[in-house]
């Protein structure tokens, strides 16, 4: 199975709108899922420009975009990916 890649947007907009608290995922995910999931904070993914700051913070789980992302929403998306293989 391919590794799941989680990208947390660390652009200014996402950080201000709540990505700051998503940094918890960086410690939490490896301890929970080991090698199966990789989490990284990345420079601005440009979603705020293409869409709106109202839906920030943005996180991607492989090709899926999580809007108004919270730790719980991201974990839910990871779980869905894992169970669907």
């Amino acid at each position: 199975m391919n590794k799941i890649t989680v990208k947390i947007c660390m652009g200014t907009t996402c950080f201000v709108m709540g990505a700051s608290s998503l940094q918890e995922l960086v410690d939490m995910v490896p301890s929970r899922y080991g090698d199966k999931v990789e989490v990284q904070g990345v420079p601005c993914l440009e979603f705020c420009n293409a869409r709106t700051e109202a839906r920030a913070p943005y996180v991607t789980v492989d090709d899926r975009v999580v809007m108004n992302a919270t730790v719980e929403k991201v974990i839910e998306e990871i779980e869905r990916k894992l169970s669907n293989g």
Partner: protein
Amino acid sequence: MDKNNQATHLKKEILIKTIKAFLSDDFPENTRLIPFDMRPKGSEVPYRCCIYKEREILRNRIIATLGFQMEGADERTLLSDYAKKAEQREKPDEHTLTVLESACKGCVPNRIFVTDLCQGCVARPCLENCKFGAISIVNGKSQIDSSKCKNCTKCMQVCPYHAIVKIVVPCENACPVDAISKDEQGHARIDFDKCITCGKCVASCPFGAIHEKSQIIDILSKIKQGRKVVAMVAPSVTGQLPCNIYQLKTGFLKCGFYDVVEVAEGADITAKNEAEEFIERMNHGSKFMTTSCCAGYNNLVDKHLEEIKPYRSDTKTPLYYTAEIVRKKYPDAVSVFVSPCVAKKSEALNSPDIDYVMNFEEMGALFVANKIEVSELEETEFEVEASREGRNYGILGGVSKSVEAASQNKIEIKPHIINGISKETIKELKNYAKKGECENGNLIEVMCCEGGCVGGNDCINTIRTATKTINEFTKNSKPIA
């Protein structure tokens, strides 16, 4: 309430949109349109009864963001006129907080309540244990007579089904000094004579009905008028955005600020003075001293804790010394403190050297509105580099550690930390004042917010991550002595 919630998100979104409107070619008109842009025709109605109420509350939030008091405001005034007035205002308003009556739910009063989970049992421990005769059985189930109930919670504790709950009004419950209560209509009202501006009510209201009146438009207007505007950034600013303080300085300069200085520079002076003062006080037989850098604590002492005044350090705050330095260096400049909390706004209102306060959320919104990617900025050096201890002022224990370091082992310092002002810690402080001593230490560091300044009500980052980032950054800073 956790800071990570939709009310906080909404307030930040409004800040960004208001600043964007200011930066646009028609500030009044674009401000007027914000509620319509946020809730366009046919859009979903996420929180209130209808789209019109949604827009009206957004309009009220924008008025507060423009820096106006909502209590007694004329509802006929156009949002565009408020924007014009904000731009022309010369001085910020007196009070720093305002309640939006339209957003306030008018929560049911604090009380003990028997829920439907009551099984109407035979044992009836609630009835047996109530000392005030407030419980009776109606239709086989317990009921509380609120005129007799003293909120002792005994019935809650003894109910085997956990069927009895305590209903709280979040803002009243969060206020450590009983400065917020309901008016005749059931809406929250702040008593500004009692209020210590700690911001706990702002953070606690699930309806986001209590707003800080922003000074951001005043600050941006000064920049637009061509004035020299100098930002003084609090030590706790490190870690609040995804960049270091040198990149942050570049960001402020890009937004039109003339210079940026670290308040940690003033913290170094505070630490040294406070260390000297501490040694002198102890040598004169005093048993303990409290710190004096926290604005919320200073308000508490001045308004409610007369008895602890003799034990509070007379040393000025880091912001005081920094503002003095800035005033000397740039006599004609407008000085702006970049702050983790609302309490510092009250300190600024009483200081001739501090013109405005911008909180961390407003700072973040300013960079977002200006489309500045802070992590990609070049670094700009500070003329004066603050010490490690000064830069640690915003984390819990940082203040007492810096006083310890500045005292250079001339005296034994045993710190005790008051981690957040609450009814309990106020009692604790009163007790120390009464006894004239503190069994837990001789230097009491008082932090109004749990976690220190990084736990301030306007912080963007979490306490844990912000503290970690500050520790990593200051590792390589020079020591104070």
